[in-house]
């Protein structure tokens, strides 16, 4: 089991009392699976994603990656887990504006101490079709190109898990489709586990499993696997 949660819960304190943004959730995700988490805005999708990725800590319950309980780790150790096993793609791309496309892609590999960071990054950028835009800064790239850079960055450390938060949310339909295709293509090629938050049902349909979030409650959407 690659990812496992047991009775995972997240509460936040507000001026009107405690808000349960994630009801106790138990979930298992196998290596190589592609999972979509769908739901309305504010339903708690992103909260679940942040807990699964170890970006945030749960109020109760456990989440483990590769049998390591993230709750037992401190911030530094969780960062290490992310560095070793996790890649990210965000709705707003989150590239570092003052680094070029190439340098953005190299960054995770460099942080992990990978000596071949540049070579890998060049290859990946070639693969996403940006081989000729290596020295461009994010603001010199279109939205679709920026997201392709982000995809290349996500794959650079050959992560086991890829978290994608509304990866096409900021793109027009045509560009969004191209990015989707690219994402799934690369995912298939590398056999990475993909966990994607989206409210695009068409995109969700491309995943093997679809989980629906409603008011902090998670439920598996039963359907025929294609």
């Amino acid at each position, binding site marked *: 089991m690659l990812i496992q949660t047991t009775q995972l819960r997240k509460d936040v304190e507000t001026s009107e009392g405690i808000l349960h943004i994630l009801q106790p959730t138990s979930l298992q995700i196998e290596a190589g699976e592609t999972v979509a988490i769908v739901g309305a805005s504010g339903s708690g999708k992103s909260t679940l994603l*942040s807990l699964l990725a170890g970006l945030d800590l749960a109020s109760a319950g456990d989440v483990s990656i590769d049998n390591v309980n993230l709750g037992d780790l401190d911030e530094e150790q969780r*960062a290490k887990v992310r560095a070793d096993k996790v890649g990210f793609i965000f709705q707003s791309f989150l590239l570092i504006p*003052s*680094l070029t496309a190439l340098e953005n892609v190299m960054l*995770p590999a460099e942080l992990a101490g990978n000596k071949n960071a540049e070579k890998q990054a060049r290859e990946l950028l070639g693969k996403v079709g940006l081989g000729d835009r290596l020295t461009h800064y994010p603001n010199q790239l279109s939205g679709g190109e920026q997201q392709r850079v982000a995809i290349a960055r996500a794959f650079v450390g050959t992560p086991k898990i890829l978290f994608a938060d509304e990866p096409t949310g900021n793109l027009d339909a045509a560009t969004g489709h191209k990015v989707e295709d690219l994402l799934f293509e690369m995912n298939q090629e590398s056999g990475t586990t993909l966990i994607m938050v989206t409210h695009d049902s068409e995109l969700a349909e491309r995943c093997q499993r679809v989980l629906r979030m409603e008011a902090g409650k998670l439920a598996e959407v039963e359907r025929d696997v294609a």
Partner: protein
Amino acid sequence: MWHKISWRLLKHELRRGELTIMAAAIVLSVTAVLSLALFTERLQAGLTERSAEFLAADRVLSSRRDIPQDWLDRAKEEGLRTADRVVFNSMAFANEELALVDVKAVSEGYPLRGELRTAQQPYAADELAQGLPDAGEAWVAAALFQELNLSVGDNLEIGDSTFAVTRVLTYEPDVGFSVFTDSPNVLINYSELEGTGLIQPGSRVRFNLLFAGENDALNRYEEWLKPQLNDDTHNWRSIEDGDSPLARSLRRAERFMLLASLLGVVLAATAVAVAAQRYCQRNYDVVAIFKTLGAQRAQIQKVFILHLLLLTGFSIVTGLVLGWLIQGQVVDLVARYFDVNLPAGSGRGYLLAAGTGLVSAVMFTLYPLLRLIEIPPLRVLNRELTGTDRWRWLHWVASGGTIYLLLWLYSQQWLLSTALFAGGALAAVVLLLVSRFFIRASRQAGMQAGSAWRLAMAGLQRRAQANSVQMLSFSTAIMLLLMVLALRHELLADWQKQLPDDAPNYFLVNVAEDSVEQLKQRFDERDVQVNDMYPIVPGRMTAVNDVAVVDEVSKEERESEEAPSSEQREGFGRELSLTWRDTLPPNNTVVAGQWWGDDPKPQVSIESEVAERMRLGIGDELTFNIGGEVFSVPVTSIREVNWGSLQPNFYMIFNTATLSDFPASYISSFNLPEERKSELYELFKPFPQVSLIDLDAIMDQLREVIDQVSIAILFVLILVIVAGILVLLAQVQASMEERQKELVILRTLGAPAKLLSRSVTYEFIVLGAISGFIATIAMELSLYILQTQVFELAATFHWRFWLIGPLAGAVIVGTMGRLACNRLVRRNTAQLIRRLA
């Protein structure tokens, strides 16, 4: 790896202009400190050297006895140049006439500073003297030519010696300002001194040893010598001691430069502080991304500390180069303009400047950086997260400590630093409170206004906390600018007053009573304005309250140097120039008792420093001996006298009834422009007994020094203005970014660009105007303290600044706000949203 990332970030960010404000702030602080330190140091040295001419040396040791040989030897060891100067009073005979003269015997090398000028005939064009009078020769002041009816080549007897008069003495650097009490000078060679037979044990002679050399050597020598000096017989002085107009001007200039430089340093540091905050805020997202991508805290720390250090290093080097270039240019300008050589600066300025850059960059970034490193990775999903605030106290401690440290580093004066810091801190708290009040008040005013105004005021109120901090830096910057501006104005005006274009450049002495009217008439006819005529009656003060004063000190002792000093003395030890008049002379203020007006009762008014020195007060009975006639009068007033005024000034002034029956000669002063100098001879032809003292040379020198200082002050002012504008710019930039989100929302909702840019402009205008107003109040208070406590100036009210302050604040801050906002609203909404995303 991390250093590569760090370097990469720096390289790109520098190129993309993202670090411009931060780098500019550090560069500016370094540039400002370096050029200020170097320039003031060099100018100071140059000025001291220049003004040393007034002493004819860098230091002078006066003594009533011979100066021990080993003191001289020691000076030689230190590499100092020395020269002897002995001054005494004697009668001189020529052409069967007799006159009291000041004899100055000087040795080889005199003057060590400045120059000696002589002419072939009285009032003829003069030239630089070659060497000194030879044995058997004397150079004589023009006044004596008139008094003794001398011609060049005549013999002059002094003591046992006879001297051939070979040149007219036109300018001696060390003649000083006390022209009224001086007798005409006779310059002879030191080797002739013994031959006169006038130097006997007990004779009233002042021995002076003049020193000149490197500052360090002088200081070392001074340290060695001072413990051996006896206050009763020795007097060690430099140009900055004393009360001459020059010494005062220099002291004031020095204080101004120091203060203005300190304010400049504080401003530059403020710019760094504002920029540092922004620098870190800009990187919040970057750190969150780093952490999400798995970066360890230590890696992030290293990346950003190195990034900051590289940026600081780069900026410091740029600042040093820039500062060096700027001060070089200014020094060049000054040197060319005034024909002086400014000595090279020391390494201290470079250290100080680099230190300032490093200290302010590191200390002001400390807290923002801590906060930056604490940014949670979750920020990638929730942009509101900004990490912990628990280190905020550290920010205040670090910032306050840094400012204090910088003040001290620059001034090396605990008291001044503490006073400025405490005053500044107090002002900051008050400013903070006042600005909150104003923001609240303006919101109420805004409710009644049009939509752009209403939006502006609502914004002002909503960001009250952030705005009051902004206002603090706006106010501080504007206040410091106004302060430096006003002080410069005050100083220049004061100097101008001291040396107006029509300041008298000639003094008349020895005008006989019966020629006064005739002389006035002749001056009138030739359209030469002559000032008040002062009668002079020579007399001695012999007793105070019937107790005789100790009168052992010779006249030479007083007159061998410049203006009256404030040494402790029992009596005057010489004849005084007494005068009478019914009206208080200009430049005099009664500080105790009352001026007599037309009260006919015999009485005297004394100068305040004399009163203090001799412990005299209102009601004391002073006894005078004038030509054998002895009488006593009570002191009825004490006057403060502006000795810098180059006007006739007196220790003792009597009312008319007391003195007017004694025979008197008159003195006065007048201004004759350079181009009319040739008329002098014609003007004075009917009054052969009148002596004329030419002050042009002294005044030119003084003017030149003041001009140099004025240039220096202008330079400091410009630097301070640049620093101030940078603070404003950094602050506007920072607050624009805070407003960005709101603007984007309003823009997306369809608010027209015009409305937005207007509302932002209005908000900044109001911020600027309030800041300007607060700044003016703060400036007025600070100036009052500075003028009265530091600059020896009268306190004044700067009504013009009450208009300039708010107006300038509104215009500058409003303009900057508008420019920054225009850049933002020019982008289309999609771009803006993406920027925010």
